[in-house]
């Protein structure tokens, strides 16, 4: 039996504050026809016989606008729908093509490479129809602000600041030119059937193309992004999310973000450094706001909506930086957090240990070292103060115990290195789902190496070489996976340069340095930048 979702029944709202209820009532009155009936089949569920879909809950473009100016609109297959070459007959104007539920048709049967499709081949995007089958009537609008980077015979590509490309095919009545800057919601053309002289059905073929780490620049599933955007278009919305940017120091960026109308799931905080959302050039860094904080329990009736993250190493340069923070629940408009923006000016203190060469960009990418969060530019002279250790492996070899899935190791130089706790796994961006199982006997045969440090610290030297600051190769006693801080005595010396948290220094040469004050501070408030928190 098909599962269908009826996600937007805001009229059934209960237990809202008076203010929120009033707002919803207004939204309810404003909602267009077809709103309350909206439903959609789950992602990956294609028209029977049309191939294997991708079951994927990711929303790849979480804040995009629906790419048509008005609703209703209908996402379904034009090939397997009425009037399509593989359809049940009839013509493209059949009422069934203009009814709910929506159907995913990403990965629908095609012959061409699609690495994210179960079959390895398939349809790259999603077909969507406007309110009716009349061409050159219904406006297509930019789903996201960006630059028009290509206009072909029947395609328009708009690329956003984060590199995501939004593709619009088969339009007529184009309103834009290559190089134009467009804003989210701006009219760019009309739904039509342009297809290089051989008309297709009247529909908009919509793609999302992103550079996906580990795969490449590929077409990603647009279905749930369209669902999300459509709900907003049709007024199936609640109040904007709220939150606060509470603290920005040299140790931590923290605050909270939540949708007060639906606290059952966490939402994102999104950080923009030295820029702002929608400026067309600054990349927003998502952080899942799902940490528990006692004060939120009483204040908003739900505890798990806080976030905290260490500062990006690349910005510990003694220069003032600004961070603007927003709450994002997936709807098109981001809500800036209270207390945002804030500024910080912080320095960097070189941790002790050895330097291990990161051989090349491929190794850097394989280790998922972030140029923003994990790397800092330093002089060759500073790098030279650290003794040189063995080159870093080309990629992290993650293994997990078959008898105890909580025990995760990295294989390094023939030794196993414990990843001591979840915090550390997060900080290194180790994806446990990708770890290789290994039985205990095999693990026992491997000598122990140093426990992994709490976070990666990567030095980008003047010469262009990259060096990971790591421990010398000596066995240590593993600590339990529930250890709060993990690490070792001489690791993690990323330090605020003074107690006030925001003055500047670049001491650099104190290779063995690890100020006691910092150690205490780190253990007290967990000043560990968790890259995994950026999710």
């Amino acid at each position, binding site marked *: 039996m098909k599962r269908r979702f009826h996600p937007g029944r805001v009229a059934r*709202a*209960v237990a809202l504050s008076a203010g929120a209820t009033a707002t919803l009532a207004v939204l309810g009155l404003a909602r267009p026809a077809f709103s309350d009936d909206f439903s959609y089949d789950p992602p990956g569920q294609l028209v029977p016989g049309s191939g294997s879909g991708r079951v994927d*809950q990711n929303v790849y473009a979480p804040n995009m606008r629906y790419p048509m100016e008005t609703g209703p609109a209908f996402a379904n297959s034009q090939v397997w729908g009425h009037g399509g070459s593989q359809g049940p007959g009839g013509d493209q104007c059949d009422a069934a093509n203009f009814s709910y539920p929506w159907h995913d048709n990403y990965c629908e049967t095609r012959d061409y490479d699609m690495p994210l499709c179960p079959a390895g081949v398939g349809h790259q995007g999603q077909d969507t129809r406007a309110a009716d089958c009349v061409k050159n009537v219904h406006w297509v609008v930019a789903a996201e602000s960006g630059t028009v980077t290509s206009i072909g015979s029947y395609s328009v590509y708009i690329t956003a600041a984060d590199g995501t490309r939004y593709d619009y095919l088969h339009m007529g009545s184009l309103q834009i030119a290559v*190089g134009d800057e467009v804003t989210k919601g701006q009219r760019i053309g009309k739904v039509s059937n342009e297809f290089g002289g051989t008309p297709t059905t009247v529909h908009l073929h919509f793609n999302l193309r992103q550079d996906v780490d580990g795969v490449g620049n590929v077409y990603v599933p647009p279905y749930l992004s369209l669902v999300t955007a459509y709900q907003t278009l049709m007024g199936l919305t*609640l109040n904007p999310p709220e939150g*606060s940017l509470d603290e920005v120091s040299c140790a931590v960026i923290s605050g909270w973000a939540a949708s007060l109308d639906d606290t059952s799931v966490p939402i994102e905080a999104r950080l923009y450094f030295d820029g702002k959302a929608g400026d067309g050039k600054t990349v927003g860094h998502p952080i899942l706001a799902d940490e528990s904080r006692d004060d939120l329990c009483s204040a908003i*009736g739900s505890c798990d909506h806080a976030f905290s993250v260490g500062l990006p190493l690349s910005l510990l340069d003694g220069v003032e930086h600004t961070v603007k923070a927003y709450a994002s629940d997936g709807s098109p408009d981001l809500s800036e957090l209270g207390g945002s923006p804030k500024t910080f000016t912080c320095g960097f203190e070189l941790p002790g240990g050895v330097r291990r060469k990161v051989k*090349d960009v491929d190794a850097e990418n394989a280790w998922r070292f972030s140029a923003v969060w994990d*790397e800092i530019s330093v002089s060759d002279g500073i790098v030279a103060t650290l003794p040189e250790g063995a080159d870093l492996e080309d990629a992290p070899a993650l293994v997990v115990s078959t008898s105890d899935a909580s025990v995760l190791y990295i294989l390094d130089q023939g030794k196993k290195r414990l990843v001591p706790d*979840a915090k550390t796994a997060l900080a290194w961006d180790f994806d446990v789902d990708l770890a290789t199982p290994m039985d205990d006997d095999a693990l026992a045969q491997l000598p122990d190496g140093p426990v992994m440090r709490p976070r990666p610290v990567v030095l980008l030297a003047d010469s262009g070489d990259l060096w990971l600051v790591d421990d010398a190769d000596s066995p240590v006693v593993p600590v339990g996976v529930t250890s709060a801080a993990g690490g070792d005595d001489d690791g993690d010396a990323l330090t605020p340069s003074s107690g006030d948290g925001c003055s500047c220094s670049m001491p650099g040469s104190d290779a063995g340095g690890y100020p006691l004050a910092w150690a205490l501070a780190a253990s007290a408030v967990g000043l560990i930048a968790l890259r995994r928190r950026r999710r």
Partner: protein
Amino acid sequence: MKPAWLPFFFGVALGGAACDAAPDSAPVSKAAGELPARSRVVPIEKAIDVRRVSWPRVDEVDDGVAQNLSADVRQAVARSSLPVLVPRALGLVDRTVLIVRDNFYAASIHGSDDYAGLTVNVSATRVTHRYRGMPNVKGRDRVRGDRPAFVTSNEGIWSATWIENGVSYVVEVECAHPSEDARCADSTFVERLADELAFVGGSFAEGGAQ
């Protein structure tokens, strides 16, 4: 199998860093709603990063091809935070319109002469999106030597994508009349185009942060 401590990832991973003190700006008290989930189906489990570019040497710039770019485009090339690759053939390179932004470039070309009827797009981005549980997949095709690539067709538009210089590139070919143009009949032309792209420069600036 997922480790037992995996829930920490989304639960209490940074509990130690949570501040017990009242926030600077206390949240407004509101009753929690009991609405069905609306727009966001699930939490978004991703991270965004800006890759560091691995620049070719300056002496690898193909001056012969670069000279066929317009003066405006050559100026734009010099601003690019990514190494710029463009087609080398006349009828394409001389028709290049170059879009340069902080984190990507795109060469948009409407071909002429031998390449009339073609829209060619060459682009690269240094922003990468990381998704939890996304396995590494390498393209089964090869371009530009032995680089793994994905070659595909989207509504008749052929594209090839691969990693080079530490970032991802895409080249695409769209025919004005795809059903009648042999260049859009299969992957041969787009693969040849990818193989022949020339490096014409860039800012050579250290890239990454921001």
